């Protein structure tokens, strides 16, 4: 059974035709050993997405996940995750998904493709200015669930920050798929946001903030 309905495929094909400028390359690290069910859906979904535009290039990586993480030096093991699927944009390797962008998050993922292709950053100017000034590598972990309607505000904002400044790495974690990681970061409500520098939690909170407030909060902890 197809993951996307025929009508959604048609709509998406049209959106891609109208809005994609340059090619967008995405790496999907599948994990049939630890997460076979979700990896299978991910492979089907991204095969379907790939078929809708020749400007979307999907590279499936099916080898041993530890080896891949090591080879790609993704620093992902900083937080102890050893499970896929993991999704990374080749042009912006600082935008990472742990797990399938499902439910309320799927539009955010599609928008990321469009934004990256057109190099268009959709942010209030003030937020972009604040983020542009961040000079230290920071990781923004955003824990989400597929049913959380407020989570896309946080995931959209942070992925735009990552496009503005490569020092900001956005890692979006599907909290129910990664229970160990969720437990480690005390995730009991979503969106849960944690700002990390050098592997340490510098700030964390529950709830989506408007982009400017979110940006200022990141800038504020930069020197911590």
């Amino acid at each position, binding site marked *: 059974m197809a*993951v996307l*309905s025929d009508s959604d495929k048609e709509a998406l094909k049209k959106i891609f035709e109208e809005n994609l400028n340059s090619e967008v390359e995405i790496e999907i690290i599948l994990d049939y050993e630890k997460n076979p069910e979700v990896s299978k859906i991910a492979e089907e979904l991204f095969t379907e997405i790939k078929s809708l535009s020749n400007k979307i290039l999907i590279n499936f990586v099916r080898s041993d996940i530890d080896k891949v993480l090591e080879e790609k030096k993704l620093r992902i093991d900083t937080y102890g995750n050893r499970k896929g699927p993991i999704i990374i944009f080749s042009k912006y390797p600082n935008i990472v998904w742990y797990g399938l962008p499902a439910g309320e998050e799927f539009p955010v993922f599609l928008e990321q493709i*469009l*934004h990256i292709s057109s190099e*268009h950053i959709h942010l209030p100017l003030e937020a972009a200015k604040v983020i542009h000034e961040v000079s230290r590598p920071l990781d923004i972990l955003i824990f989400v669930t597929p049913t*959380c309607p407020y989570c896309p*505000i946080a995931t959209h904002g942070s992925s735009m920050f990552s496009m503005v400044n490569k020092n900001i790495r956005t890692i979006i974690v599907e909290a*129910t798929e990664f229970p160990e990681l969720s437990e480690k970061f005390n995730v*009991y409500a979503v969106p849960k946001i944690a700002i990390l520098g050098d592997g340490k939690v510098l700030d964390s909170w529950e709830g989506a903030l408007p982009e400017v*407030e979110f940006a200022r909060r990141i800038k504020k902890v930069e020197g911590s």
Partner: protein
Amino acid sequence: MTIAFSLQFQKKEEIDKEWDVIIIGGGPAGYTAAIYCGRYKLKTLIITKDIGGLLNEISVLENYPGFKKIRGSELAKLLKEQADEVGVKTILDEVLRVERNGEKFKVISRGYGEFYSKAVIVATGSARRKLGVPGENLPGVSYCAECDAPLFKNKVVAVVGGGSTAFHDALVLSEHASKVYIIHRREEFRAEPILVEEAKRNPKIDFLLNKVVVEMRGKEKVEEIVVQDIKTNDKITLKVDGVFVSIGMIPVSGLFQEMNVNIDENGYIIVDDCMKTNIEGLLAAGDVTNKGCGLKQVIIAAGMGAIAALSAFMYIKMSKW
């Protein structure tokens, strides 16, 4: 598994500073007002922190005419699409201040700065009321079952409250949790009987009636709650992994107290039958107002939004207040 989606990809564009109407809040009142304003050919901007407001927290809406069942977030997207089609502009931002500036209003938002309009419609809605008991700030205490229910798979949770929202929350949670307690201070419920019946039939849901939660305890997260019987004053301790508080709403009207808008003793903005406040050109609609006989429902908010839009139109185009 089939994935459905709707996209909100926005191309870069300059946002005008001058508008006929600025609507603050993007729930059913705000977006209905927007759709009507758009159809009245008023140049309309919505400033909202999210698309849909509390609609987003409704897993399944079953009492909005025309839809047998629809997810709240799905209806929110449809409302926005309908507003987009009539030329309404939406920006996601927080309004910090509204001022009367001569014949216009100045609306200051956190991210985009100042905007000006001839009329303002306040549709800021309401927020979940807190219990106000010790331990309520512990992780594991939630106000959005729709968001957080999947995190409580095979866990024991408590829902505090006896209204429709509490029953919605309990039913959503029962899809994930192993046990759901509904704790309510009375024996009767304000919730729609259809929801009460569904909850009573659900084997995972247990009722603790005539009881209130007086304390929440835990080291790093909530681990247990202290529940007191209001008749006997006896206390019991209940082991839980999560608590969902659903004891009613408080209006989000703080911003307008500074403007000397008339507000009642419960914080609701006082409006007349045409949704007019005491400030000329300033209208209010939905949960933030004192209208609607206390029935905080999507349909009521939408109706008020439509009336507010008509009043804005009459004010701007016919100089009638």
